[in-house]
């Protein structure tokens, strides 16, 4: 967020460097049921982000001391592949991944009927194949579809998207340049049926007015993502989704 640049990120006509309007998200592609072994899976592209999510479970919980006798626990592992970013990432878990894994699992807890599976674990794996600003939202969006694809009972599906600020404008779904040289980033995820927020982070600099606008934009963006999530799941079932099992 703290980068500075001479680059004009939003021009006089309110157009962004990739031609989008401020409240327009990047192209989004969602596909459900893309992996044969996983109980559920999804592939998501948001702009140049490419993300795979897989769900295994409900299954026996390891390590056992994490078992909850009243409900299933959701364990999430977000992982950036080494070549997904411009500087090679070292393999293995870093602090950023740990944080994202934690808040992603927490966001999913709200909608999964974990109480149906005491002592079990529902394991969510998110692999970032290519990163271009917005991977945590793309990952959560994919994970949510993968959970539904796994047939795990859910109250709703969770869509996620970021709003933010660049060149002084509040914008939806920042791309890499806007993220690097902008002034704020607000990744968020909601429960669409109630607009409750299940994931929210913010960093940068925003007035209350700007932030309110970002949230409004983000909620609308989430609903757009939600529509595409549902379409992906519909396609999955109409295509005879269990073909590769």
């Amino acid at each position, binding site marked *: 967020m703290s980068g500075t640049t001479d680059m004009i990120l939003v021009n006089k006509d309110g157009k962004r460097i990739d031609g989008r309007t401020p409240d327009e998200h990047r192209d989004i592609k969602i596909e459900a049921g893309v992996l044969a072994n996983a109980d559920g899976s999804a592939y998501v592209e948001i702009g140049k982000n490419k993300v795979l999510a897989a769900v295994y479970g409900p299954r026996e919980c390891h390590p056992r001391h994490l078992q909850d006798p009243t409900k299933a626990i959701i364990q999430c592992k977000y992982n950036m592949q080494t070549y997904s970013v411009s500087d090679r990432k070292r393999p293995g878990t870093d602090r950023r991944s740990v*944080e994202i894994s934690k808040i992603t699992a927490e966001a999913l807890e709200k909608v999964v009927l974990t109480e149906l599976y005491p002592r079990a674990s529902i394991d969510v794996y998110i692999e970032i194949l290519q990163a271009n600003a917005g991977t945590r939202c793309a990952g959560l969006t994919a994970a949510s579809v993968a959970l539904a694809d796994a047939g795990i009972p859910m109250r709703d599906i969770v869509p996620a998207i970021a709003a933010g600020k660049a060149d002084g404008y509040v914008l939806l779904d920042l791309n890499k340049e806007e993220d690097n040289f902008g002034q704020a980033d607000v990744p968020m995820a909601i429960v669409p049926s*109630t*607009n*409750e*927020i*299940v*994931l929210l982070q*913010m960093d940068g*600099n925003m007035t209350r007015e700007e932030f309110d606008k970002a949230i409004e934009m983000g909620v609308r963006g989430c609903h757009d993502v939600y529509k595409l999530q549902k379409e992906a799941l519909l396609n999955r079932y109409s295509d005879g989704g269990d073909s590769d099992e």
Partner: protein
Amino acid sequence: MSKKIISEIRRDHIFNLLKEGKRSDGRKLDDFREIKFETGIIESADGSAVVEMGKTKVTAGVKIIPGTPFGDTPNLGVLTTGAELIPLAHPDFESGPPSPESIELARVVDRGIRESGMVDMSKLCIKEGEEVWMCFLDLYAINYDGNLFDAFNLASVLALKTAIIPNEQYGKGEDVPLPITCLPISVTSAKLGSSLILDPNFDEENISSARLTVTTDDDGNFRAMQKGGQGSITLDELSHCLDMAVAKGEEIRKLIG
């Protein structure tokens, strides 16, 4: 922090009081516990502070050391923040590599400081591309009774605010204060049932469904936020949290100003 157990009775007691707008320790919903602090407690650190919020007690220390800048920011100093939930502070804390909880704490505190520009990193350049001051900010929980986010944030701000760049030690002239531009203050709301409270203690934290930490700068603008917990917050609740964070942030800023 994995297994937080609290008896049904205590839980019911807290919830019953909250229905009447009261808390088990007599506070109002938007009250913090008494905040005590002291700076300069550790002479071997270049800046240090101890903060107590009720029975929660934490320390922060800063070591400032010459080092190599990152390739993409050759003229900026470096800030590194670590938080340790040492087993001395609570029976649930364990030795070993940092837990997800301690990593989240360190990263959220770091974000508030970094994004607010509290420390003017451009003034920490010794020789562009070659040598800059590196600030190692380390946080320790000494006694844990809830709300480490705000206690760690406050201790960090106090330690940095009173920190000295040790020029003399490295033969670089006179010691000078670390260049500080503002005081980012985080205020954490916890959601218990349908109530929002500030500065949750251990019991309240354990039975809360969601948490929102909001860090504001001197102008009351937002610099960092982090929602936590397995519950959700509504848009109205969000708005209330923001109001409280601005108001209480200003109050705390005055307290330490």
